């Protein structure tokens, strides 16, 4: 038996993944256990949880998701290239590298009680590529990995075959689409590494009328490559800010972070236009890369990973226009997914077979319904066990209730896919406001997603589901406004299609029996700024702090006592 533990972390969303004899046994982000959103610290809690799920005392090998030494070299070289403007960044950057990042492999060995010789690494983009290709259902595929930056590459094209993964071409830092997006996220007044989804949602409210001006900022070439004009950016010289004053001279002053959004005003609509123009630029760049990948590999299928692949709107356009017949996106496309890729690469190097295609993302810790029962009772809530959980949930949803729903093992990646979800009826647009008020406190431009029973989606959407809708990594156009709570302002929805044979599929069938439609509004089970719930304690704490109508943890139903 061979157990390989993959680890990612150090910069953002740290995670661990365990592969035993070629089977992906567990994968989990550190934030779900530490309760610190996007926790980058060495994921020892997540690693121990994965080992405990697999019943493994100590792994045979630990594989880190990038080469820490190559990363340090790149940091040093880019600091020197930026001389003398990098003088303020230098002490802190070198301090971070020498103080902790250089020792990460030793820290992992010590923290996990594994001999140092058993801790190895793979390249950052190779880990991303493996997380997509080896989790996909395709025997051969082109693979595109796009993120902020790994060791040196910020984008790479790969060819995945029966022989393994081979790099075709790459684009190096500082020309990075991830850092481009991050710079605009900061320009629009959102938190970097957190507000990127908001930029994508905001884009739907604007029109890409500034696309021409952005052609100065990023030049696309006919071979599929792209170049950033670095004079508009500052991420390479200044750790505080991603963009330079020249970008503000081009597009107008940045948006102040604290001002509430009001898209009725011309000012905020202008910022929405910037977001829409950025989205158009990003899509054009990704399409160029995807078309080049198609030409160079001559494959019919495409796999995507890297943080930029979390852009569901761009993924939909790639699927439509890049010339591939099928597209798969690793659901944990960000750095968390690198842990999975590293574990798979390590296992295959040790002779394990390629893992089976990823069918769901329920790879984390299981919930303990008995614990939810005990804690909810101790906090004074009404608790009951029910025989037909699905009928209970369906009945409550049809009465307009908003339900915190917890079932089985938690999801790997940023999407709630029916294991840790807030559910509601998808029809009345007012539900959206209610959830926003009670729970999410989101800006008005962030849509909620529909989960629909696979095979029924053409009743509401223009195209059938595919390898991406299974993991909510693409969008579909709604035929009408029936599902008002889950349709974005531009008529799109981040559709999630659910296998009728799964437990969540059984719930959707019960919902159909009750309301006539096998669709629910599905958003992640977390408060504003918090990681998604993992354990029973998280779920009970969420219920105590947020005005949802009921908490359902497997067969345990928790409600508030009438006061």
């Amino acid at each position, binding site marked *: 038996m061979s157990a390989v533990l993959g680890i990612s972390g150090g910069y953002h969303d740290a995670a661990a993944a365990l592969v035993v004899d070629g089977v992906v046994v567990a994968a989990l982000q550190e934030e779900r*256990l*530490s*309760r*610190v*959103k996007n926790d980058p610290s060495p994921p020892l809690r997540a690693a121990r949880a994965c080992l405990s799920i697999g019943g493994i005392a100590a792994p045979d090998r630990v594989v880190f998701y990038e080469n820490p030494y190559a990363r340090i070299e790149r940091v040093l*070289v880019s600091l*020197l*290239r930026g*001389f*003398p403007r*990098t*003088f303020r960044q*230098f*002490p*802190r950057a*070198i*301090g971070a590298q020498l103080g902790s990042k250089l020792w990460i492999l030793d820290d992992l060995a010590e923290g996990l009680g594994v001999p140092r010789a058993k801790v190895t690494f793979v390249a950052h983009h190779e880990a991303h590529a493996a997380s997509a290709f080896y989790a996909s259902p395709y025997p051969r595929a082109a693979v595109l990995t796009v993120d902020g930056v790994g060791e040196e590459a910020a984008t790479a094209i790969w060819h995945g075959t029966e022989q393994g993964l*081979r*790099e*075709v*071409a*790459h*684009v*190096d830092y*500082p*020309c990075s689409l991830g850092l481009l997006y991050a710079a605009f996220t900061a320009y629009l007044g959102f938190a970097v590494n957190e507000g990127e989804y908001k930029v994508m949602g905001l884009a739907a409210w604007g029109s890409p009328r500034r696309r021409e001006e952005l052609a100065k900022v990023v030049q696309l*070439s006919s*071979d*599929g*490559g*792209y*170049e950033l004009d670095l004079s508009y950016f500052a991420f390479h010289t200044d750790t505080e800010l991603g963009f330079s004053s020249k970008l503000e001279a081009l597009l107008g002053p940045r948006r102040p*972070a*604290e001002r509430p959004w009001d898209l009725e005003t011309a000012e905020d609509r202008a910022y929405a236009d910037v977001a829409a123009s950025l989205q158009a630029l990003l899509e054009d760049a990704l399409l160029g890369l995807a078309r*080049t990948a198609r030409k160079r590999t001559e494959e019919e299928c495409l796999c995507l990973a890297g943080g930029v692949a979390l852009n569901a709107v761009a993924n939909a356009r790639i699927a439509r226009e890049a010339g591939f017949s099928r597209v798969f996106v690793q659901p944990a496309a960000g750095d968390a997914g690198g842990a999975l890729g590293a574990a798979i690469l390590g296992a295959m190097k040790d002779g394990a077979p390629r893992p089976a295609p990823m069918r769901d993302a329920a790879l984390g810790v299981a919930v303990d319904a008995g614990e939810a029962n*005990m*804690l909810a009772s*101790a*906090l004074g809530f009404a608790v009951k066990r029910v025989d037909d959980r699905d009928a209970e949930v369906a009945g409550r949803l049809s009465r307009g209730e908003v339900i915190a729903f917890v079932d089985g093992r938690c999801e790997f990646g940023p999407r709630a896919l029916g294991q840790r979800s807030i559910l509601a009826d998808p029809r009345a647009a007012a539900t959206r406001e209610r959830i926003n008020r009670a729970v999410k406190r989101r800006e008005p431009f962030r849509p909620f997603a529909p989960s629909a029973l696979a095979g029924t989606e053409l009743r509401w959407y223009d195209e059938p589901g595919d390898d991406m809708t299974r993991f909510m990594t693409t969008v579909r156009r709604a035929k009408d406004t029936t599902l008002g709570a889950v349709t974005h302002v531009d008529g799109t929805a981040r559709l999630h299609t659910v296998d009728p044979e799964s437990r969540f599929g059984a719930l959707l069938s019960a919902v159909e029996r009750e309301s006539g439609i096998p669709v629910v509004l599905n958003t992640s089970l977390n408060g504003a*700024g918090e990681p998604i719930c993992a*354990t029973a*304690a*998280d779920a*009970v*704490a969420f219920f*105590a*702090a947020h005005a949802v109508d009921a908490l359902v943890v497997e067969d345990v139903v928790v409600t508030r006592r009438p006061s």
Partner: protein
Amino acid sequence: MRLASLLAPFTLGSPRRRARLLAAFARAEHASMLDLRLAAAATPSPARQAAYLSHALDEERHARTFAAAARENGGSDPVLGDAEDLFARRGELGFLAFVHHGESRGRRQFAALATRAERLGDARLATTLTAIATDEAQHESYTGALLVELSGSEAGARKALRRARAWEAWRTFRRVGRAMAGVVWTVSMTLLYFALLPFVLLVLVARPARRGLVPR
């Protein structure tokens, strides 16, 4: 706390200072919430798990209240606090002693600031602080009872508290040391930076940035 009431005119004097102080409170409450959640996940006793979880919910509410108050005074969203994972580092008894000590200090500090805010004519802030101080008093009392229960005696509880205070002093000492070392580091690294000029030329010649799509 006498120090807090002495400092109050300075810390509550202007909306900006007020916002900064409230944001610092929000951060501390959030950090304390995280530590309690980790303790709830780690304790072997279901009763204490429920107690820590309920306590964490109070601290989460305090964090939200302080963050909202900071925003009302013109501050932006406060940076979230970090857990210290005291349960894992100090054991359950050490963790409880530390929490008990912190609650007692928090209660006195908030009560003193409430009086001060009252005098400055900010009744709203005074009410908020008084309500939170009441919660802290309850936290102080239940953790005190648990301390006696877990250590087996009043004397044991006092001993654990003395240790918590000593450890806290040691931590402050280390923090000051680290801050001073940070200054030395920044100065010496900045000097080193300018001494690296020859390497800058070397890098520009030997490692020019590659642009566009580079084939393998």
